[in-house]
């Protein structure tokens, strides 16, 4: 079974040289720490930055330079700033190659719910609805079950929807699942996790790929 760092490491294997990537808040942000050697990816922040660098040294903290999580950051060589309309313009027009998001629920048809829990304070969708409506390649990074032990991979979302038919792949502490017409297709299981356990913890339609294998993490 993976911890959150393991999930981030596995998603980092999806990065390709030259990719423009938008990483959501939480586990997705950790993916930046595991970019494979020898490839260059450019991180987009939807408030208006291409080329997010590491957190600054204390003396370099700049209040005018933050990421979409409102954390202080730096820029990389070749970075650029722009306004928030252009930022979503590049997302909407399909320039961003990969988007990694957290989620509360994913349905076996690729629907995602990640912005609102009825009865709880609603904080807002931020850029999530724009991202899921437009990004061509969306990977969800999340825990397989919620705190009550219930599956978050469902036949249909029970929470308010963020976007329809948009998720392409889900990576959880148990494995990697492609969204296919047949539902969640398990293509990898995490070290120490049995297929039976994955079946038990997945409420949505689940098929086990004929090429299923154990996840390899360096």
């Amino acid at each position: 079974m993976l911890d959150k760092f393991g999930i981030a490491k596995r998603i980092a294997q999806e990065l390709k040289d030259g990719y423009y990537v938008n990483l959501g808040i939480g586990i997705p942000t950790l993916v930046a720490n595991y970019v494979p050697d020898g490839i260059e990816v450019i991180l987009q922040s939807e408030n208006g930055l291409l080329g997010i660098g590491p957190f600054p040294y204390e003396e370099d903290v700049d209040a005018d330079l933050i990421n979409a999580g409102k954390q202080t950051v730096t820029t990389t060589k070749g970075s650029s700033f722009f306004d928030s309309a252009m930022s979503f313009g590049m997302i909407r027009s399909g320039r961003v190659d990969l988007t990694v998001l957290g989620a509360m629920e994913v349905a076996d048809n690729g629907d995602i719910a990640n912005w609102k829990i009825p009865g709880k304070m609603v904080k807002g969708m931020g850029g999530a609805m724009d991202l899921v409506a437009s990004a061509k390649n969306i990977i969800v990074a999340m825990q397989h079950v919620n705190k009550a032990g219930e599956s978050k991979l469902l036949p249909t979302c029970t929470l308010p929807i963020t976007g329809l038919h948009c998720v392409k792949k889900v990576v959880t502490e148990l494995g990697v699942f492609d969204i296919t017409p047949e539902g969640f297709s398990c293509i990898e299981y995490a070290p120490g996790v049995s297929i039976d356990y994955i079946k038990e913890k997945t409420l949505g339609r689940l098929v086990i790929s004929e090429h299923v294998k154990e996840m390899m993490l360096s």
Partner: protein
Amino acid sequence: MLNKIVKNADEAIADIQDGAVIMLGGFGLCGIPENCIAALVKKGTKNLTCISNNAGVDDFGIGLMLKTKQVKKMISSYVGENAEFERQLLSGELEVELIPQGTLATRCLATGYGMPAIYTPAGVGTEVANGKETRLFNGKTYLLEHAFDSDFAIVKAWKGDTHGNLIFRATSRNFNPLMAMAGKITIAEVEELVPAGELDPDMIHTPGIYVNRIFKGENYEKRIEQVTITKK
């Protein structure tokens, strides 16, 4: 002769009346018009509808205007990090309309470009789409979203000149140039105000035609929501 210079924030916002619809630039606490917010709190203007991506924190940004109960309605994409906001929302004192961030940005753009509406895929199939017109383009469904109609836009820039030309710095640009284009009256507060001719025309982000009033702001705190650092 163009005369857009006002003395300070008090003068800039003097004619904002109770019940006005105002846009405020910024993302989180980054690039917010600190001086004008302080002046609005001092003036005590009430029943404001505020269009801004966020609602500040409890004791800074728009949070200061929430504390004094000057805001009737917030139109934002994300309003976490603010306990007073939550209290007023749950007690029914405050209305909130949540809209996707890209939709918020592009509706500002539409206003500034003189377009009545846009089509966007954001929110299709969600509660954001309730009651909205949809249309199919190339097999994909889009929502019709209208340009904003606001009385004032208040933005913060890094540098400005006496003609109202503006330059923003780093990610404090965010919604500022978009909102600058979208106010019936646009007020810009700047860290540095220079005579026309001193800014390189190639470097201007917001042409002065969009700006009605400009002044040099003072005592910027530039509070940071989350200081994250790399240890040496």
